[in-house]
């Protein structure tokens, strides 16, 4: 027959397990131990409270511009929750809760966004790459890490994050294509939060879903309710198992919503309505998860309150550690650190130049 439908190797599904009212589809409900459910809940609350606190600190002028995560707690924590410490995280810049889950100290986040390079430092034990600000540039690094894993025949996997806007960037397509060709153990998590600053998802691409882009590269794709932590855990688990067993990459579109600003320099009132935001407030990932935990008898109102208080105390303690750190000597001369493994002569001399200037300024301030 000259004209017939082409059979593609993968089909596209949408997964939702816990709806916005906290009702669970028991046929799909993943078997997650109570302890882990509560840990996920706590991490989501911590992510939300830390985000709120950062916003306050930013409004007070104590930290600079950052990208809030509010509303996207499930889509990121649900995904990284299935990783082991030997796996790799390659984040964009709106995965703070996922990074904290993976061991990044909150005071480092504050240090970075208060303008100190030291905040970007990654502990030796962590397999988290630093945040990548140029949109869509980092999934390629995940592919390279995946190649290294495959080459050394390790059991590790890589999870990389990016947003709906990033799917318009060429590098994301190159990453998906390379991942398909080389069958690397990489999970691509696209947090479709519906807005790339002021450009809505519908203006980013004519495609009905973002997940379907996976099909163009011959890799499995799945659309998931990103505000449903159970669905995120289930989808991520499936993808990680596939990657770990040599089945190659997966693309997960986590459909979520950026409830807050793009960054603190942004005013969403210019381009979206409050009604739209309110529609998504009803689908808050934390609220529905608390309903679910309550119905399972795992979380009482008092317990939820206690978690909230503990988490606030944790955020406060981190803030205090940060405040103390920036009181201490944070020498500007460290700006030369990490330029190269060994500073070449011209940088040694430029470093000396700055050192002399700093000393002269100090002397002048002292005498003046």
């Amino acid at each position, binding site marked *: 027959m000259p004209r017939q439908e082409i059979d593609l190797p993968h089909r596209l599904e949408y997964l939702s397990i816990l709806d916005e009212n906290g009702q669970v589809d028991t046929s799909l409900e993943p078997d997650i131990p109570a302890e882990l459910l509560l840990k996920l809940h706590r991490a989501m609350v911590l992510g939300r409270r830390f985000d709120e606190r950062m916003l306050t600190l930013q409004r007070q002028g104590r930290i600079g511009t950052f990208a809030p995560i509010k509303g996207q707690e499930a889509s990121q924590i649900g995904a990284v929750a299935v990783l082991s410490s030997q796996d790799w995280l390659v984040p964009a810049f709106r995965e703070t809760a996922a990074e904290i889950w993976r061991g990044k100290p909150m005071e480092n986040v504050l240090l970075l966004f208060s303008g100190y390079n030291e905040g970007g430092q990654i502990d030796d034990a962590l397999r988290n790459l*630093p945040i990548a600000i140029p949109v869509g540039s980092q999934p*390629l690094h995940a*592919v*390279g*890490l995946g190649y290294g894993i495959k080459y050394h025949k390790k059991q590790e996997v890589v999870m990389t994050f990016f947003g709906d806007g990033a799917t318009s960037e060429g590098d994301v397509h*190159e990453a998906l294509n*390379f991942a398909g060709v080389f069958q690397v153990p990489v999970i691509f998590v696209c947090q479709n939060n519906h807005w790339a600053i002021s450009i809505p998802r519908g203006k980013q691409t004519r495609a009905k879903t973002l997940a379907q882009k996976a099909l163009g590269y011959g890799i499995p794709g799945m659309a998931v309710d990103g505000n449903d932590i159970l669905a995120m855990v289930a989808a991520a688990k499936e993808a990680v198992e596939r990657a770990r067993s040599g089945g190659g990459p997966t693309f997960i579109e986590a459909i979520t919503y950026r409830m807050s600003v793009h960054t603190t320099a942004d005013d969403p009132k210019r381009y979206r309505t409050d009604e739209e935001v309110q529609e998504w407030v009803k689908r808050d990932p934390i609220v529905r998860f608390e309903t679910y935990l309550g119905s399972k008898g795992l979380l009482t109102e008092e317990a939820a309150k206690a978690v909230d208080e503990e988490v606030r105390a944790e955020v406060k303690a981190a803030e205090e550690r940060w405040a103390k750190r920036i009181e201490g000597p944070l020498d500007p001369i460290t700006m030369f650190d990490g330029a*190269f493994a060994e500073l*070449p002569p011209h940088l040694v001399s430029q470093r000396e130049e700055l050192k002399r200037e700093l000393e002269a300024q100090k002397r002048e301030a002292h005498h003046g």
Partner: protein
Amino acid sequence: MAKMTMVQALNLALRQEMAKDERVIVLGEDVGLDGGVFRVTEGLIQEFGEERVIDTPLAESGIAGMSIGMAVYGLRPVCEMQFSGFSYYALHQMEAHAARLRWRSGGRFSVPMVLRCPYGGGVRALEHHSESREIYWAHTPGLKMVIPSTPRNARALLVSAIRDPDPVVFYEPKASYRAFREEVPEEEETFPLGTSVVAREGKDVTIITYGAMLRPTLEAAEQLKEKDGIEAEVIDLLTLMPLDDALFTASARKTGRVVVVHEAPRTYGAGAELVARLVEKSFLYLEAPVKRVTGFDIVIPLYQREMEYLPGVFRIAEAVRETLRF
């Protein structure tokens, strides 16, 4: 010692480093069975297999970005851009990430990769196959920029670039790929990045150059000696970043007269930095303005006219005479 072309010498460097260190992986477009369009990677896939000699999809940014991830993982990727004119797709990955990951992560991660590309004119190629844009890379903090000039130094520099703990952009003068042969020892040879050499000794004038321009420069120096009795000292930079300014400033102090030669456009080209360093470090020794012999600030013309665009023996020799007449 065998006499080799630069292509063969580069191939020797890759083969020996791959045999020695299983972390070294070659990747790029057509680098496998085809051996690269210039045959620099010829035979590697047969010797090391397709896991270590990767034919990638056609996407330069993808190649560079993937190399970054591989390097972070601990591999030593040597990626090839088929022509430097197509490498700008990769510029963003190199500038935004390869050059910065060590700094950004507080030393936790590093990117020991080499990005190789053939560059420069003189091979009667199509548009986009002849340009010289080394300064894009040399101007980027965190990248090293190397340009060999002969088979022997190309081999030694590539070995050192592969072993370097930081990202190195390695420009290969394709006009010199097969133009001449040189003795290249079979046994291992390295050459420290950031070190320039005296390619010809002289006392009257210093000519600073690099890459494909070394040959016409040496030829001009020979002609100047024969016709005019001028003894030109020729400095071959070999690495543009970090730039070894000790050797050429010392030479300038000795001769008092300097000519800079490169095929890249003049304005903000390497010559601008060289002149600035001379002014900073040898100002009182200069007896004449420093002359720049360079490509013009236009797109290099198609091949019927590229030789008129590129600095040649005539232009270099005339510039030296003018400098001496001052």
